[in-house]
């Protein structure tokens, strides 16, 4: 049993840690490249959303290298993500690959059932430790990522944020015990504080939208970094740990947060529409109340929940007086086009901010 899994941001580090601690060898698919996208798009239905194509590409590349068990996620709808596994299984079988597929449904009972399949002669204690270890890495990676995003518009030396980030990721991936991971966190956070300028007031932008596109930097063309280097503080509303704690573990604080978002989104969207469509609207309303300068919505082409949100967001933007930019990604997204739109959007926000400041000064 050689386990493989799809890429999504730093997900591979978490899953690698989990399965290795459970006593199974893993094969992380090669990093996403143009070839992955082409492979995936070639064998996928034409109008399916981008994550389907890219993860299919991941699986093909991993199977080519000898993996034989795919671990991926399931779902209950109405978003298409929940049905990916079934269709991808059919496509890969038609391509002639031999493999097992384990689709983890988002409920704790199913997770435990599948766990019996993947854990290799491990005691409950060891299994618990494996989860704790992987969970710690996940939390630390997200904390570091948040701190690095805050650092980027304030860095004393250009590029230092990226150096810190890549070094931290490497160290966390290699760390073998929980105390080591927490030590890396401390170390990184101190380094970040050391390189931070305190006298900058950057623009604040909220990043809402679909989880895969916001987390996977290859797909969103390093959106966070590009914005950070333009001197913008990006507040991403979606992290892997939020998703796991909210959807899988159903922690109370996340359910409460969801209720809160539902209440503020209600005048615009009165029902859950799958995925993160409702959250995108809820966060946009909240961010305008919190004085953000703008919101960027990022999602893959034809994503059903986000398309609904996109058609409602102009109204939200108008009512709440906050600029919203929708960025749609597919396998053909050109870099220059996205850059131009981002630059124009940032210029607009700066202009708005200056005008507001001038107005304030004279009144």
């Amino acid at each position, binding site marked *: 049993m050689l386990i493989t899994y799809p890429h999504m941001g730093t997900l591979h580090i978490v899953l690698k840690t989990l399965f290795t601690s459970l006593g199974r060898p893993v094969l992380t698919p090669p990093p996403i490249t143009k070839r992955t996208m082409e492979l995936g798009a070639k064998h996928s239905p*034409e109008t*399916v959303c981008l994550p389907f194509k890219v993860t299919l590409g991941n699986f093909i590349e991993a199977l080519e290298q000898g993996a034989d068990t795919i671990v991926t996620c399931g779902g209950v709808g*109405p978003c298409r993500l929940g049905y990916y596994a079934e269709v991808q*299984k059919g496509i890969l079988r*038609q391509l002639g690959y031999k493999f097992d597929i384990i689709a983890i449904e988002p409920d704790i009972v199913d997770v435990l059932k599948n766990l019996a399949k993947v854990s290799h002669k491990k005691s409950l204690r060891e299994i618990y430790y494996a989860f704790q270890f992987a969970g710690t890495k996940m939390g630390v990676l997200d904390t570091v990522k948040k701190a690095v995003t805050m650092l980027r518009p304030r860095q004393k030396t250009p590029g230092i944020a990226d150096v810190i980030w890549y070094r931290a990721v490497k160290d966390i991936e290699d760390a073998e015990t929980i105390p080591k991971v927490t030590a890396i966190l401390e170390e990184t956070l101190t380094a970040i504080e050391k390189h931070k300028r305190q006298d900058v007031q950057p623009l604040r932008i909220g990043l809402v939208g679909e989880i895969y596109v916001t987390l996977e930097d290859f797909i969103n063309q390093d959106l966070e970094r590009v914005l950070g280097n333009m001197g913008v503080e990006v507040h991403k509303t979606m992290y892997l740990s939020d998703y796991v704690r909210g959807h899988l573990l159903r922690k109370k604080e996340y359910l409460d947060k969801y209720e809160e978002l539902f209440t503020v989104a209600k005048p615009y969207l009165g*029902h859950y529409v*799958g995925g993160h469509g409702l959250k995108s609207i809820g966060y946009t309303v909240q961010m305008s109340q919190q004085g953000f300068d703008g919101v960027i919505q990022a999602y893959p082409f034809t994503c059903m929940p986000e398309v609904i949100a996109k*058609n409602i967001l102009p109204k939200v933007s108008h009512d709440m007086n906050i600029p919203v930019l929708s960025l*749609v990604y597919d396998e053909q997204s050109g870099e220059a086009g996205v850059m131009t739109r981002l630059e124009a959007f940032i210029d607009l926000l700066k202009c708005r901010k200056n005008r507001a400041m001038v107005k304030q000064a004279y009144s």
Partner: protein
Amino acid sequence: MEQQRDSSIKIEKDDEILTIRVGIPRCLLFYQYGVVWEKFLQELGAEVIISGNTTRATMDNGSDLDEVCLPVKVAFGHVNELCGQVDYLFMPRMVSVSEGQYMCPKIIGMPDMLRSNIPGLPPVIDVDVDLRQKKRNLYKAISEIGQVLGKGSLQSFYAWHKAKKVQRRQEIQNVHAGRKRVALIGHPYIIQDRQLSMDVIERLYKLDLDVVTPEMVENSQADSAAKIIGKKLFWTFSHHMAGAAFAFMQPPHAVDGVIFMTSFSCGPDALTAEIISHHAQDQSIPYMLLTVDEHTAEAGFVTRIEAFTDMLKRRWAVC
């Protein structure tokens, strides 16, 4: 003074100005539930206005929206047509009509998309119909609709009871011996809409083919046929379509060809089509995917249908 007021009310009553006009757009779920909805609203004492057939103008009207599928754009056109003619727009939020399954997200979000994009929209009756967890929620929805129209729960239930009996008009097609039989799989709001589907059913008849559609398959039959897929589809209509397609492909009376008709950027169909095409390939039944959008040109469309028909007719003739 007192007398005058009394008489004015009386005049209104005589002229029947007090009837509430409720509009139902001829789009999306109208093709499944329209007849029942119409009867139900009439039983509740409303005057029902249904928008006309889809035209080119209806399609153009809805193109303000970004990235949504063609049926949703067409729905906007229909709602635009009804604006100003009606007091209420009947567009219940159909979240789920069967246990453990959903509708397409775009149908769930429809009332909100309408509200955000159409200025001067009449009040929308957007009662949640969510039978995903409890079937009884239907009665809650019925009494809520009754409340909007000023009727009590009991009256509403009675109206529903009467409306429910109205059977969907089923077009009975003659089966011609010796004709090739094609399963045309697609959402009713695509294949039953003559403008949207470019009259595909009629065109296929003219090419000497017998056409069967998913509506001809009972729910129970589709359910059992759909069991061959590993995971049940969680969209009710996609589940029915896939089940119907599998039922049509069952030997010994398998159809000679399968045409899957979808609109560009339809979410559930992208996956459903893939599953059906895998199955058709396994059974070596010819399969064609027909995608329509507002730019589809007639000539290209006709050529594809004709080529597919020719292929079916010649398939076994050679050997």
